[in-house]
């Protein structure tokens, strides 16, 4: 019996793996198909994996924007254990990630998503067939596959698990124990690296707790313990990611669709939510593929039809009612500015506005559809007599026929939707087939296994038209290859690597050049950057010179005095700037300017000489001296989170390292810890006495250490609770 328990999940995994045959049975496809994935996420992975394979934690990324915290920026998923598996996968000898590893990573995520939903449905006492169906729907359809950024996809694994424990609570099982599990699962979702899905799951969890409290026979303050513990464990388990992010976010500016990047305290303007909301006609994209809808939640008519059937047939079940409400809630939220609900939440609930794509809340619809479809299948397999079966089979047949008629009109008119209306027709056919199945299965005309297999097969076949069907065939050169720049600029990288010295590069390429090629740049494709650097006169020649920007990689020069020194295979050129400062030097004069804006203005003024002077918010305790002798600073060893300098000061001065200042950097002089200064408002400085010194800058943020500690405590607490025997079930509310 115990062996048979594993057959269905195993089959589910096999089905998911086979579904992605393009990725592992051919070498013609890749899922890295969108600019964000190819140009931003992939370079992060390349850098992270490289660092990990060299025995270092990739907490600090020196290659973008003069150096930025990578882990605290969240999206590199560095606190998520499943991501470590990928980063630890073997790399090519040349230090590059294998495409195979990337593809299997994608498949692994899809398998985990399916298994999580399978577990949830099994916990709801659904049959193995029904749970497999739900797993397939949730893994292969919905917004969670359209948004295939791993940092988002990982979080979708945890939604069913969070609901699993919360539904246990609703069913009257131990609220504290299951609340802790739900909280820990939610914390795990927050570890994944993106906040949108965890935020929506958290909102749903809050709603479920409120519902639970409201439906208690008699309210007692002790009842609050369970939700409180739930969210405590969310905070604990998620701390390894949440704390560094919380430290970084107030210091950063974020590109969120506005003209200028927004600071932490600035709300995203509400008009920006409009284009990222689910439009009213976009709702058709639940059942029709390729509609022009952001974050299309395509689930297919079979899954959606089954979900409606499940709700109709099994409304008596509390789980069905609750999961339907979750789905409706998600749908209403996803409509964004089309309803006042989202606006109220935007206005009243802190932090909600950070999730700027309400359409992504259809994740909750996907959860609901998958679960309800499982209920529908079980009901049909049980041959329960219901008029709904008849009405649904007629309704689906009529719908299918209507779609075929409308589809034929679209085809006739060569309409500019869904490949000239072509794919519209598929939905009609699948609706008709589902109707046929329902009519046959509900009358017992199919054996149980066929009755179960047919809708599963239909769902899988229909979901073939999901995002994977639009992946570009690598051998089809008639379509532009998004990965071409990543491969073709290697000669430029080779040239730059061959140039001696310590300098930076500015780029005008669509991807994170620095992370990809391991070259320090002054820019990059990132979601957020510390405000201390971006608030400077970022594009001025003076600033670039100060930041040691020696080369420019672009089609055109940005200044007339730049000269071409190299040209790459696709016409991209390397320009050299006429002058650039060294990476480190010593100054002997402090200019105090407590106000950040004024400091920035002063830095750009002609009266200020950054080679000689330094701007600080306050006078350092050790006063700098002015002297006639010459200073010297050399960079010794340099790895991302540690820079060693050899400084020879003629008298007391401040060593300036033109890497971006960020809390978490520590400095020692000759092995003795010293205070680190935010020199000139954005780079690092340390005071040294006269003579020769070894200065070591190290990145060791307390938020990461403390966060990891809290996560471990949360995890240990969860395991401790898990090892304790659960008390007998309480009242079954269903």
């Amino acid at each position, binding site marked *: 019996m115990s062996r048979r328990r594993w057959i269905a999940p195993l089959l589910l995994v096999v089905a998911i793996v086979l579904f992605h045959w393009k990725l592992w049975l051919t070498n013609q496809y890749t899922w890295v198909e969108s600019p964000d994935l190819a140009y931003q996420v992939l370079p992060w992975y390349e850098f992270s994996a490289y660092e990990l394979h060299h025995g270092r934690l990739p907490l600090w990324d020196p290659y973008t924007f003069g150096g930025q915290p990578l882990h605290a920026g969240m999206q590199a998923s560095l606190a998520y254990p499943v991501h470590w598996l990928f980063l630890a996968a073997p790399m090519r000898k040349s230090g590059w990630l294998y495409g195979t590893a990337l593809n299997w990573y994608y498949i692994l995520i899809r398998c985990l998503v399916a298994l999580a939903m399978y577990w949830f449905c099994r916990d709801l006492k659904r049959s193995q067939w029904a749970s497999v169906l739900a797993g397939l729907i949730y893994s292969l359809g919905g917004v969670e596959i359209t948004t295939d950024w791993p940092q988002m996809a990982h979080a979708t694994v945890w939604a069913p698990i969070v609901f699993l424990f919360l539904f246990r609570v609703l069913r009257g099982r131990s609220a504290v124990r299951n609340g802790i599990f739900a909280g820990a699962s939610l914390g795990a979702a927050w570890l994944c690296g993106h906040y949108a899905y965890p935020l929506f799951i958290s909102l749903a969890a809050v709603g479920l707790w409120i519902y639970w409290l409201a439906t208690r026979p008699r309210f007692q303050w002790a009842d609050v313990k369970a939700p409180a513990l739930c969210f405590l464990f969310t905070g604990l388990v998620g701390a390894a990611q949440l704390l560094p992010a919380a430290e970084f976010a107030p210091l950063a500016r974020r590109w969120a669709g506005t003209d200028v990047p927004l600071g932490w305290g600035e709300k995203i303007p509400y008009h920006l939510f409009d284009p990222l909301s689910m439009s009213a006609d976009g709702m058709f994209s639940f059942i029709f593929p390729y509609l022009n809808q952001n974050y299309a939640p395509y689930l297919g008519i079979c899954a959606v039809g089954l979900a409606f059937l499940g709700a109709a047939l099994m409304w008596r079940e509390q789980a069905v009612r609750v999961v339907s409400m979750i789905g409706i809630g998600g749908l209403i939220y996803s409509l964004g500015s089309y309803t006042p609900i989202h606006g109220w939440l935007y206005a009243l609930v802190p932090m909600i506005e950070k999730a700027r794509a309400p359409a992504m809340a259809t994740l909750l619809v996907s959860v609901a559809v998958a679960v309800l479809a499982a209920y529908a299948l079980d009901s049909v397999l049980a041959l329960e007599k219901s008029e709904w079966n008849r009405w649904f089979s007629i309704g689906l047949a009529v719908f299918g026929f209507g779609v075929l008629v409308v589809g034929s*009109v679209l*085809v*006739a008119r060569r309409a500019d939707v869904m490949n*000239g209306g072509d794919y*519209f027709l598929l939905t009609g056919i699948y609706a008709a087939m589902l109707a046929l199945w329902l009519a046959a299965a509900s009358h017992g005309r199919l054996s149980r296994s066929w009755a179960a297999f047919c809708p599963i097969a239909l769902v899988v*076949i229909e979901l*073939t038209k999901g995002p994977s069907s639009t992946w570009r*065939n690598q051998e089809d050169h008639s379509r532009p290859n998004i990965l071409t720049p990543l491969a073709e600029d290697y000669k430029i990288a080779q040239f730059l690597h061959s140039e001696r010295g310590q300098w930076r590069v500015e780029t005008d390429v669509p991807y994170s050049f620095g992370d990809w090629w391991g070259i320090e740049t002054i820019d990059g494709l990132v979601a957020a950057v510390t405000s201390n650097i971006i608030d400077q006169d970022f594009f001025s020649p003076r600033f670039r010179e100060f930041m040691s920007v020696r080369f420019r990689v672009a089609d055109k020069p940005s200044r007339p005095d730049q000269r071409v020194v190299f040209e790459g295979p696709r016409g991209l050129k390397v320009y050299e700037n006429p002058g650039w400062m060294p990476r480190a030097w010593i100054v002997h004069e402090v200019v105090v300017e407590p106000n950040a804006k004024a400091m920035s203005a002063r830095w750009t003024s002609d009266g200020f000489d950054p080679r000689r002077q330094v701007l600080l918010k306050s006078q350092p305790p050790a006063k700098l001296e002015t002297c006639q002798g010459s200073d010297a600073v050399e960079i010794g060893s340099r790895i991302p989170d540690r820079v060693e300098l050899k400084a020879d000061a003629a008298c007391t001065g401040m060593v300036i390292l033109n890497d971006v200042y960020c809390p978490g950097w520590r400095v020692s002089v000759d092995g003795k810890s010293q205070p680190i200064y935010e020199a000139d408002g954005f780079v690092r400085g340390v005071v040294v006495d006269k003579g020769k010194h070894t200065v070591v800058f190290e990145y060791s943020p307390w938020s990461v250490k403390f966060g990891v500690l809290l996560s471990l405590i949360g995890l240990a607490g969860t395991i401790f609770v898990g090892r304790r025997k659960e008390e007998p079930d309480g009242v079954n509310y269903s």
Partner: protein
Amino acid sequence: MRVASFNTLRRLQIPAILFLIVVGFYWRLVLTNQYTWLHGPDYANQVMPWYQFEAGEWHHHRIPLWDPYEWAGQSIIGQGQPGVADPLNLPLFWWPLRKSWLSEGAMHWFYVLPHWIAAMGFYALCREFARSKIASVIAACLYTLGGLGSSLDWPQMNHATVWGPVALLFVFRAARGKTPIASGVLSGFFLGLAWLSGHHQIPIYFTLTTVGFWIHFFIVEKDRRWQIAQAAAAAMIFLFLVSAIQTLPALEYGREARRWAGAEDALKWNQPVPYYVHETFSMSPQSMLGILLPGFDTSYPPHLGFIAVLLGLFGMVTTWEERSTHWFTAIAAGGFFYSLGANTIFQGLFYALVPMIEKARVAAIAQIIFDLGICGLAAAGIDQLGNIEWAVWRKRLAWTFGTAGLIMMSTAAVFTLMKIIWPGAEDRWMMSGWLALACWLVLRRNTKQTVLWIGFLAFTEISLTTVRSWASNDAKDRSRLLEGLASGYDIAEFVRTRPGAPRMSFVLDDIPYSFGDWWGIETIEAMVPSTPEELWRNDVWSRRTNELFGVRYYASKKPRFAELSKLFVSKSGLQVWEDPDALPRIWNVHEALAAKDLGKALDMLQDPKIDLRKQTFVIGSPPKLDTCDDPAPPVFVSRVPNRLVIDANMGCRGMVIVDDLYDKNWKATVDGRVVPVVEAYAIVRGVVVDKGPHRIELIYRPLSVYVGALLSLFGLAGVCVVVFGRVRR
């Protein structure tokens, strides 16, 4: 005696009825001289020239194995698609020629008769499951005259559809325990015949279907697994044996050839056809709608008709308790989903997991499997129309027809009024609506004539496909392809009369058909799906390569090379250009150089320092030749496609070069003594000859064809033993 005659006549009754129906269906082709099915570029420009060449060869008592007229010569049997070994082609090839040309009438009967054979096969399949004669006749007509059976006009594909139903019949017979091994043998035999048709796609789909059923029966029939395994093994062995005469040469050729399959470049054997090509050739959803209604198609018209499909569904519902219904449903569903290609995951998995499936790049053609399944179900449905047990469902069927008819007619009317651009269906949708309404009327009553009426209406519906499909001789724009074939006669006459058997080249944009095969002139251009790698790895478009191949004349609107001089202007306006530096078709050399590898050899061919008239080169160590002047150049004594006889008088040891494409199956003798054929210039044939006069004979002797023929004969003998053994028992 009288009784015997009567029984014989009764046996011929059904074939005669089917014959009349098929001929009646194709009345435009065989009862008038106003239409032709040869209106597609592939048929007119590629297939017709092949057939013309093959028929010419048979009439000269030669088996067409080597085609010297295209691409400097290549194996014609190895290409597969010319259908050299297809028994259904032989009557056409053997049919008397009209002034050495295939007659259009023969071509039309050649098109029609395989449909009749297919109908008989499908009839037998239906009768195997105890369907009534009338239901079997109607279903057989639907299979062969509707759907892809009717619209696949490439004979090499269409002929394969003939044998699929019979092959399945014997699989089912074996599964039901009726002389399993003999049934397995016959299943393999008919599947083998399908492979002989020359094109691989439909045989692959039929083979997949039968293999699927063998596996299914092996799993399900637990008590008879050994028997099923034996039958399946017999089927596979006889499939291999019977088809060997075509598959072995095709395999040999395929491994050495490059194929144009829709990818950016011609593909080698070990290069899978990229999946985006399969995506292109998948059945589009609108084509899917075209199964029901005429006019909705993107490439392969799949129209089977509303009536046939609804009858099939009715048959599925009403006979669901029968095993055969499950089988036909599985066939229909499998064929349907496979033909959707990239629109579902189904075909992709086959592409990725089953070896060689990727060679079948047109998933849409798997609709023939769907047709087979749905027509089998339709036969069951027709028989159930009169069954009182299913009267309620018959009523539902009638109302479905009625509703569908009304919707079709009203939509068509609205479209017409709104002047919506229509994808080629015009008023045929309205006609489908009328027919559906007629079905509603017919099905309202249950009389003896109901089935006949339904059969007639289904027949009328599938005939809607043909209304617009064939070219009328009066419609100039549609039959211009055939006229195009005739327009090059003066060019052919001109080149043919030039001395030295020169080779010619042309531009496919100007002459879009296989000029060489059609007019019997050796060319270095043709419309073919594949060419040998030997040729393609060279720069075939360079002047030097063309000169090596003795291409003296070029037919095109503009000169291909600046050095060409204009010689002749044809009536069609095309010009014939001459390259005075072209090498002769045969010459001697007395110096052989060594090319280190293939890359070096390819460079040497384009190297102007090498005098191709005096020097040759081979990959590896060259044969030792002596230097001298020859008393006379070599001459052809006889020259037919499979055999060349040359007289050479050498001043000293040298090499006689024949600038036909090298192929390892060409064997040489000098004065009756076997000598090796050298791959001179890494592309053409050379024979080393000692001093003095010699007679050289070059003969095309492909081992794969001989072994294949032997195996096929062996298979045929085995089938005869099985069949006569059964008759005797």
